[in-house]
């Protein structure tokens, strides 16, 4: 690529951003907060050590009180509730798992919570954020600047329009997880609210 074409590309990107002045992190946060997350998901996890991709399905819901419920249905049921700074897990029989036996470190839970609620202000404390927009959709790339997080995560990627459509994260050791969301009309609260008590 010639020097000139690089300049053209850079300025094109610059102007492209200019032309979507409405596309800022604040406006995305604003948009996301208008409709609470209420979706089914398909997760595929690619682990370098394994030959197969680990696939799972389930639903994800952000309650009015802003508690996040993440339920895996297939291949085996498990439920996770993330409240601000706190995480509660249930096994396939809906029995609560002792917190010390819970898998997830609480730091990661907070991260999930910020992503699901589109809280870029909180995320920007721990990540360098890069935003790209086109007319209908946006994509946010997050790269950790917090040392503790960078021990685990290499990068996070979110895409969406009025809502988040997908997110993926690449772990330091190479695990790549892709989560695709399908927004549902029927509220999940009737099914998932019982985990909030």
């Amino acid at each position, binding site marked *: 690529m010639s020097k000139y074409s690089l300049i053209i590309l850079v300025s094109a990107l610059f102007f492209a951003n200019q032309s979507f002045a409405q596309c800022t992190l604040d406006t995305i946060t604003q948009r996301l907060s208008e409709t609470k997350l209420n979706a089914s998901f398909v997760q595929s996890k690619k682990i370098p050590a394994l030959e197969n991709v680990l696939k799972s399905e389930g639903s994800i819901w952000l309650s009015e009180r802003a508690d996040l419920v993440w339920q895996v249905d297939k291949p*085996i049921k498990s439920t996770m509730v993330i409240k601000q700074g706190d995480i509660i897990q249930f096994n396939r029989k809906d029995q609560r798992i002792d917190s010390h036996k819970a898998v997830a470190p609480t730091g990661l839970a907070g991260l*999930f919570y910020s992503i699901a609620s589109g809280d870029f202000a909180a995320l920007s404390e721990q990540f360098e954020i890069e935003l790209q927009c086109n007319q209908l959709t946006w994509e946010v790339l997050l790269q950790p600047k917090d040392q503790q997080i960078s021990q685990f995560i290499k990068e996070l990627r979110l895409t969406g329009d009025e809502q988040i459509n997908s997110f993926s994260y690449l772990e330091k050791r190479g695990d790549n997880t892709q989560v695709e969301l399908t927004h549902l009309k029927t509220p999940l609260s009737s099914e998932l609210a019982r985990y909030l008590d």
Partner: protein
Amino acid sequence: MSLTKQSQLFYPAIWFVIVAIVSLFLVANRTQLKVETNILKLLPKSEADPMLDVAFEQYASKNMRQLVILLESDRPEEGINAAKNLVSELTNSIHIEDIKTQVSAKRQQAIGEFLFKYKHSLLSQSDRLLLSQKNYDEFNAENLEIIFSPLAGGLTSLITSDPFLLSYRFSQSLDSTSDFVLKEGFLSTQVNNKNYILIVASLATSPFSQKTQSDLTALLSELSSQWQQQQAPVRMLTTGAMFYAAEAYRTAEHEISTIGLTSLLLVILLILVSFRSLTPLLLTSIALASGIGAGLSIILFIFEEIHLITLVFGASLIGVAVDYAFHYFVISKSLQARQRVRKIFPAISLGLLSSVVGYLSLLTTPFPGLNQMALFCIVGLLVAYLTVILLFPIFSLKADASGWLLTLCRNRLAKIAQVPAFAIWCFLWLLPVVAIAIVLGQTVSQDNIRQFQTTSTKLQQDEAQIKSVLELEASNQFFLVHAKTSEQLLIQLEKIQPALENLVNQGVIDGFENLSQRLPSEVQQQSNYRLISDLYQSQAKQTLLEFGVITQQQYTMALQEFDQDVGVRLKPEEWLNSEMGSPFKSLWLGQIAKAHVAIVPIIGINDLAALSDINSNVRFVDKVGKVTEVFSQYRVQTTKLLLVALLLITLMLSVRYGLLKAITIVSAPLFSISVTVIALFFLGVNLTLFNTLALFLIIGIGIDYGLFFAESSRLSERTFLAITLSALTTIFSFGLLALSKTVAIQAFGLTMLIGIASSYILSPIIGSLVLKHSGK
């Protein structure tokens, strides 16, 4: 006469030699002058079981070095900031050896790698059950939940070499049942909407070192007040032996400067008012100082350190020692110095002998504290006595007791001469009868070692609140397990697991820490290996293959790895030196007296009475309970010794005075201690070992009062004045201890107060009777 001149120099010379030796010794050892405040040092060695003593010593010394600090905040952020601040301050302190709060990523990784190495020999109790029941479906389901959890994190990379997540499952079973989770590496929890962060530090030095106490309490209180003033305050709760020891020391220091100073001023005032001269004050001070100095020296020489309690109790010999000095000053106005000594010699010598007989009985007990106290008093009294007879005569004494005081005493005696002394005396014999009835009737014993502790409400509140948030190991009660080899010890520990769980289920205790759950015996490890082998051979792998968790090829490789691990076993030494085992080193005591010994600490005792030995190899150790029991035994024994001492003194005195007169003299302290016992009973104060000890001093003092009258030619106002002054001095010195905040010292002071007051009131009545028996 030249002989007299020689002796005039010779006697003081002896005194100077003694005092010089004492002074030199004290100066040479001044750096070692350590006041021991550790309660446990008062305990007798349980000679029957040296293993128990060593075990207790090792465990308690480790346990007592722990500082438990809990930070309470409304939001986690402030708590974490405060914790970081605290950890960096503590790390910089020379008094701190180790801080057990942050679990570093490095340490977590080291533990993970260690467990991974031994994964084919380790199984948690619940997994052993699942596998022995061949409930592989449940086992697999649990694993799938973990693998497909959105936050499975680093686990997945383990799957190829550990498809059944054995190392992960074992590590999860180890974490205590507490509700603490790691937040930025700090152990945190939430109770009633408050955030708590736990920091446990261990001291590099003894918790009883005053330097450690003052440095650390200053540091912590400074941080604490800083955090309190923050916009979002952080509260610091603390507990640990050091805080209690520091508090005890502070209280003692405070009391010495308030109670001690008040007594001293009152005594000085008393002497100045009585004699209007400085010489008696000076001489009395010399007598007391050399007595206390000598007592201190002998204790340091023999025991190498002095206990705070010895110092307090021992210093009470002042009450007896001043008797000799006062008697010397008031015996007569006209007598020459030597004549004075000759005149008081029989009375004070017998007084000394009686007190020594009393204290000797305390020397026979196995309590180091009582031994120290008795020895301190015997030597201290002897030197104070020698000061009076050897040193006092070289000073010419012009001062005489104030005339008005003598008139007062004369009038008082004149009144007493009119009372029917003998009738009263006969009637007073009811007192011992009532007292004995009370002693025999007393069933509730309060001989608790905790009476040595001050009652600081702040520390107790902190401890109570800490206990409501986290489970603290009981520091004085635990199970002691022993066996011939380390393998047998682990087997023994595994065997008692059900019995221990039973205690938890019954609510007797809240929890325990059994090493065998972390470090299985070799036999158990072999059996684990067999169970895992069954798992590998079973159909369990199908589920993993089906969900794409692992391929057939990967599974085959994992199986090969498993086969290679056939002889890999986790050995105790290796475990103890690993990141995993090192925090539990204090529970593995190693070899003591040919046995391998381990401790099972107990968390939260709800029903102490229900705890006992599990079998002959698993003993329940309760040092506090044991001490309470031993204290009671010694209280009973001391009470008996009290009567023995009285009997011995009666026999000794009857040689000089005849039986009737001797009984009359001894009846004075007998009545006094009876009055004291009765008074304490009506005041609702239980008789403890400490009261009983004070009764010993009352005997010594009461005997002196009787003897002084017996040795005077008539019911002399001078003798009565000497007794009055001694009684007041003793009350000023020790009656004031009744104001102490330390329960034991308070009990001691109150007993002294009542005992001396009644001895004093009885003294002229007994005195007049004694003189009547002599036909004077």
